[in-house]
C-alpha cells in the first residue's frame, strides 16, 4: 500500500454475535479469526471472547468479538454483551426458517435496547448447503452431507427485503467454505461511523482538532515503574 509507512489510526470496535443455537456463530468467528472450520463444533457455553484486526485503506479496526451462546438458557446474557457494542452480527441458518424468526427478535431487541448508533448485520449462514451456494462444498471436498441439492428454506429475497426495511447490512455466508465471511466484517468496519470510533475525537472536542490525543488510560502499558511515590517527590 502506498501509505504503509505512515501508521494508520487504529480503533477498537466491540462486536456481538447473536442468533439461535447452531446457526454457525462460532464457526463464522473461527473462520474470520483463524480461517478454520470444524465440522462438529461444540455449542458455546455462556460466551467467548476473541479479537481480530481488519485492515481498511485508511485505518485499522480491531474487532473485540463477543460470541454468545444461542441456547435459550443463556438468553439473559445478551444484554451485557450488546451493551455499548458498536456492531452486532445477527445470524440465522438459511436452511432453518425458525432461525430467521429468532434473528428478527434479536434485531428488535437490539433496536430497542442497544446503543442508538449500533451497526447491525443480518447474516444467513450455511450457504454451502444450497444449490446456488457459491463455493458449495459437495463436489469440491467430497464431504457434503446434503449433496443431493438444495436445503435452502429461506429465500434471499425474503431476508434481503426485511434487512432493507430495517436498515441492516445483509449477507449470505458459508463458514464452511469461507464464502463472504470476511466481507461481512469488512462491511461492518466500513459502516461504523467515524465519530463512534474510540481514537477519533468526538464532535464535542473541537478544541483539540488536528491532534490525535490518546485519552484511554492504559493499565498495563509502559508506564514509569519508578512512579512509586508519584510526581510528588
Amino acid at each position: 500500500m502506498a501509505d504503509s509507512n505512515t501508521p494508520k489510526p487504529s480503533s477498537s470496535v466491540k462486536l456481538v454475535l447473536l442468533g439461535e443455537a447452531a446457526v454457525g456463530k462460532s464457526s463464522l468467528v473461527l473462520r474470520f479469526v483463524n480461517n478454520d472450520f470444524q465440522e462438529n463444533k461444540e455449542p458455546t457455553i455462556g460466551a467467548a471472547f476473541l479479537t481480530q484486526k481488519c485492515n481498511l485503506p485508511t485505518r485499522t479496526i480491531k474487532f473485540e468479538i463477543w460470541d454468545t451462546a444461542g441456547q435459550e438458557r443463556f438468553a439473559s446474557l445478551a444484554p451485557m454483551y450488546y451493551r455499548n457494542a458498536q456492531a452486532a452480527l445477527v445470524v440465522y441458518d438459511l436452511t432453518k426458517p425458525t432461525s430467521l424468526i429468532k434473528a428478527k427478535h434479536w434485531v428488535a431487541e437490539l433496536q430497542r435496547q442497544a446503543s442508538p448508533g449500533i451497526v447491525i448485520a443480518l447474516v444467513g449462514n450455511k450457504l454451502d448447503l444450497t444449490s446456488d451456494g457459491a463455493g458449495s462444498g459437495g463436489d469440491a471436498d467430497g464431504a457434503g452431507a446434503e449433496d443431493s441439492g438444495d436445503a435452502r428454506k429461506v429465500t434471499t429475497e425474503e431476508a434481503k427485503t426485511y434487512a432493507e426495511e430495517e436498515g441492516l447490512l445483509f449477507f449470505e455466508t458459508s463458514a464452511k467454505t469461507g464464502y463472504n465471511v470476511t466481507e461481512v466484517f469488512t462491511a461492518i468496519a466500513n459502516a461504523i461511523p467515524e465519530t463512534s470510533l474510540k481514537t477519533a475525537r468526538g464532535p464535542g472536542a473541537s478544541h483539540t482538532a488536528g491532534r490525535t490525543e490518546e485519552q484511554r488510560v492504559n493499565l498495563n502499558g509502559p508506564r514509569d515503574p519508578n512512579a512509586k511515590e508519584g510526581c510528588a517527590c
Partner: protein
Amino acid sequence: MESLSDTLWDVVICGTGLQQSLLALALSRSDKKILHIDPNEFYGGAEAAFSLQDTELWVNRASAGSGGLFKSASIAKPEGTTGLSASRAYSLALAPQLIHARSTLLSQLVSSRAYRQVEFLAVGSFYIFKPPQESSQRPSLARIPSTREEVFSTTAVSAKAKRLLMKFMKFVLDYESSPQLEVWQPFADALLTDLLQQEFKMDAELQTYIVTLTLSLDGKISTKDGLAAIRRHLSSMGVYGPGFAAIYPKWGGLSEIAQVACRAGAVGGAVYMLGTGIKETETAEGEVKIQLTSGDTVKTRMLVRAGDSASDEMGITRLVAVIGSPLNSLFEAVVEGAPRPAVAVIAFPAGSLSTVSGKASEYPVYLSAHSSDTGECPAHQSVLYLTTLSTPDANATLNLALDAFLGTITEGQAPSVLYRLQYEQLAGSQRSQSEASIFTFPAPFLSLSFNDSTLQPVHEAWKKVMGDAAVEADYMTFADREGAVDDDDVYE
C-alpha cells in the same frame, strides 16, 4: 443438559452488584458449577448504570419501596422541549465512584485480565468552590494543587502556604515511619484539621484544601483516616500517566466493571438469569434448597448474596443532573503529556453554601462532573453527580450547589439543566455475614472513591466456595484466554 433443579450447584450467587460480580470473576476458572441470578431485570445491582428509560423504571420501583437501599427517588425535567437526546444516549451511574490508581481493584483487574475489556479514563482536577466575597462578584473554582510541581507553580496560594503544603506532602508520603509517626500519633483519633492546625500551622483555607482531597463526606475525618486518604491520593499521582491520581471506567464506572466481571463468569460457564430472585431458602445437611421467584427450586452447596438491610448510619442524598454544555474548560489536561480527563471533582466545603433558611451548609457537597467521553451522555452535554450526607435540607442544598456551580461557568451562555434525578442511598451493614452455607456481603460503601475494603469480603466468599481447593496465589490471577489477546495477525 441438566435442568436447573437437577444440578447440585457449587454456588448460587444472588445479585450482580460489584462484589457478587467480582466473585463470579474470581471463580471463572474454577470449574465450579455457578448459578448467577439477579431479581432485577438489569445487571449491576446498587452499582448499575441506566438509560433514561431504565432510570424511570428504577425510580418507580424505588419510590414504591422496592429499591433496596435506595429511596425517595424522583425525576424532574423542564417542561416542553428539553434538549435531551434519545434515552439510550445516556448511561447514568447510581454509584459513580472514582478509583485511585493504587487501588487493589485495579491490580486485580489486571491480574485477572478483565481490564482488557474496560476503557479507563483519567479523573482530572479537584476544585474547591469559592463563594463570592461581595455580592457583585461571581463565585469561582480554585484548583487544588496536588503534586509538588503544581504547588510550586500555582498562583492560587501564598509563598508561605506553598512551603506548608510542601512540608505536609513530604510528611504524608512517609507518615507511617519515624519521626513522622510520633508527630501524628497523639492526634490519631482527633480531627485531621487539629493536626494541620497545631503541627503544620495551616490556616482554615489550607486545611480545607487538604480535607477536600480526602473526599470525606462529613468533612470531619480523623487524622488516622485522613492521612491514609491523602497518601493514597498523592501516591496514586502519576502511576498510570502524568497529571492524574484516579481513573474512571467508561460507560458508568463500577457498573461497567461489574458487567465485565459477569461476562468473564459467563465465559467460564456460569449460568445467568435476570429477573429471578430468591423466595425462600432452607438449609439441611450442608445444602441450601432455594425456591426461586421463577418457580424453580435449586440446590446448592453455598449461597452468596447481597446485603441490603439498612443500618442507622447516615446515608447520602444524590442529585444527578444532565446539563446542556460540554464544560470544556473543566476537562483540560493540566500537565504536558497527560490524557484528557473525563471527570473533574468540585468540592463545596461545609459552610460554603447558604440554604434558603439562611443557614450555612452543614456538610460538604461533592460534585463529580463527567464529560461525554465517559459515554454517559451525548456530545455537547455533561452529567453532574452531586452528593451530600442526608439531612432534611440535603435536596435543597444539592440544588443550591448545582446552581452555584453553574454560576461559575464563564464560557458561553449559562448552561441549562436538562434533567434532574434525585434519590437517597441508605447506609447498610458494613460487615459480611458468614453462616454455614450462606454468605452475605456488606452493603456498598457510600464513599466517592472506591474503598479497597470492598474487596475483602469477595476474597472471603471465594475461599468459602473453593474450600480445600483454594490456592491463595491463584486468586484473581489468570492467563489470557486463547484468542483473546491482540496478536499481530492483521487480516487484510
